[in-house]
């Protein structure tokens, strides 16, 4: 029995999963504190001594590279609890706490404590383990994407990632060198909604043609005024236009769900599949992989992939959005872009343009999504209407040989699958 027992059924969820602060706190323990959460990319700490601060479920972390290895530490001084490194990134030979000056090596081991003879005979004395920064229990990396699990016992990583590992592969394989590098800064967009509302929207293919008519539809009509039929369109129009593709397009894109709550929409076709070819890039890919393999890599064109619960990625345009729940009705969404090593700069510039246009809080697309999320958060305060419906295309999903299920693009399959996973996590005593 848990406070969430009975709140998730096969085809609907209770409104309180989005609105109850007690449920949110339990999620931070039972989901964000219990499974694999994305913390950063190895390319953010390329050299020994490079560090970035990170977080999982509001807990401060520090990712450091030392002797080639990635270390993930709680960014919390073992003495009186001060955050050791303030938010940001940099390079350090060692870390010194700003409060009483304890000094730690890059792997978190304590190096010096002022007047440490005062600790003689204690668990700190001549540097017992309690004097060092605490390491996160489980860290794993896939194609440079670093995940951590705060619990002592983590689900087997490769098994957990199954089904969506191929989305990460495809994003990395699109680099002629098979490697990605975080670059171009970050957009940090604070959303006034529950984190699950944002997450569900990414594979909600019934919304774009409604929510994004004023941006995408307007982009199409402005393009029609300035460009003739068949004329090459600016990248901005290629990016904005497909959001208002018709229902048939989104239905045909298809949708796929996997154990662990993961999913992706699109397969060979998505809103990203009609971008202009860039010759120098195609040449680099053909040279690196051979034409047949390069074509195979490009033939995979997924829309949003969700590595449940916190990493979402778009392989064809090399961006990720990382979901950071702050409170029951507050969610920070970080958008990062990647350079594909060996690809011409034009590709990075397209990723940047995409993020500007779609993920910036000052732009044309994201704010209309955000408006919908806020209206859900407000609408769900109506407590006489207890349930949120998730029945669309129910029962029409097909099981796959890879252990997942597939359905037409506008199916609620992904939501049902997310809540099956959610309920399982929440029922487990942390």
């Amino acid at each position, binding site marked *: 029995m848990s406070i969430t027992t009975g709140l998730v059924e096969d085809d609907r969820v209770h409104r309180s999963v989005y609105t109850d602060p007690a449920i949110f706190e339990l999620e931070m323990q039972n989901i964000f504190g219990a499974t694999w959460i994305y913390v950063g990319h190895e390319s953010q700490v390329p050299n020994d001594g490079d560090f970035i601060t990170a977080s999982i479920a509001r807990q401060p972390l520090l990712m450091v590279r030392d002797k080639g290895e990635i270390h993930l530490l709680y960014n919390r001084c073992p003495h009186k609890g001060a955050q050791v490194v303030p938010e940001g990134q940099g390079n350090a030979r060692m870390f010194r706490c700003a409060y009483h000056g304890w000094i730690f090596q890059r792997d978190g081991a304590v190096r010096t404590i002022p007047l440490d003879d005062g600790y003689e005979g204690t668990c700190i004395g001549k540097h017992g383990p309690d004097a060092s920064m605490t390491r996160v229990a489980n860290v794993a990396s896939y194609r440079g994407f670093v995940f951590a699990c705060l619990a002592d016992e983590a689900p087997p990583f490769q098994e957990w990632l199954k089904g969506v590992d191929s989305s990460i592969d495809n994003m990395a394989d699109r680099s002629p060198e098979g490697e990605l590098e975080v670059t*171009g800064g970050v957009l940090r967009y604070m959303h006034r909604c529950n984190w699950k509302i944002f997450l569900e929207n990414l594979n909600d293919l019934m919304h774009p043609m409604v929510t994004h008519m004023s941006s995408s539809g307007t982009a199409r009509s402005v393009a029609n005024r300035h460009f003739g039929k068949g004329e090459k369109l600016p990248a901005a129009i290629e990016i904005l236009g497909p959001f208002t593709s018709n229902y048939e397009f989104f239905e045909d894109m298809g949708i796929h769900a996997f154990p662990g709550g993961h999913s992706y929409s699109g397969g060979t076709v998505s809103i990203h599949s009609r971008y202009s070819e860039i010759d120098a890039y195609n040449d680099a890919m053909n040279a690196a992989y051979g034409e047949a393999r390069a074509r195979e890599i490009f033939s995979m064109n997924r829309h949003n992939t969700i590595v449940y619960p916190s990493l979402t990625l778009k392989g064809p345009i090399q961006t990720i959005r990382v979901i950071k729940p702050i409170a029951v009705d507050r969610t920070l969404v970080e958008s990062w872009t990647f350079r594909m090593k060996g690809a011409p*700069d034009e590709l990075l510039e397209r990723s940047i343009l995409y*993020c500007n246009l779609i993920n910036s809080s000052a732009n044309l697309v994201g704010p209309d999504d955000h408006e919908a999320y806020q209206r859900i958060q407000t609408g769900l305060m109506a407590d006489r209407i207890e349930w949120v419906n998730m029945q669309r295309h129910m029962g029409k999903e097909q099981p796959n040989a890879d252990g997942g299920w597939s359905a037409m693009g506008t199916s609620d399959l992904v939501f049902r699958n997310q809540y099956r996973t959610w309920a399982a996590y929440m029922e487990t005593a942390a």
Partner: protein
Amino acid sequence: MSVDLRKVEDFLVHEARLLDARDWAAWDALFTPDGIYWMPAAPGQDDPLRHVSLIYENALLREIRIRRFADTSAFSLQGGPRGWRIVANVRIDARDAEANTITVSSRLMAAEYQRDRTTRFEGFVTHRLVTEGDSFRIALKRVELLDCDAMRGDINLYL
């Protein structure tokens, strides 16, 4: 080339008042054909193409945004965001007689109000202005918010 500071100030105030009045078309007409409106996402950001921005818009993107302002299906604009701007500390930082341009810096305070919520903005503004007869055209307007790299909610208006 001698450009009178007073004239520059008048121009910036005129521009701000067009924005206050939501006369987007008249405001947009102040730009040169390849003029750019830019809100960087990092302090001191000098690369708009390989680093994300809050906004980086040429004439085509401004046309889309300005049409969207009048679109009743722009859901996030319902409940009419309204705003005002104060321009101050105007200085001419550089003059390029050959290109007929001046670079002007100023400070901006602005606010946006929508549905019981007021958001305040402070920023450093740079204008690259092309002198045209008695007045100017905007080749670049760069608004660097004081907290441009902070986590933030929506910005619905041009500042």
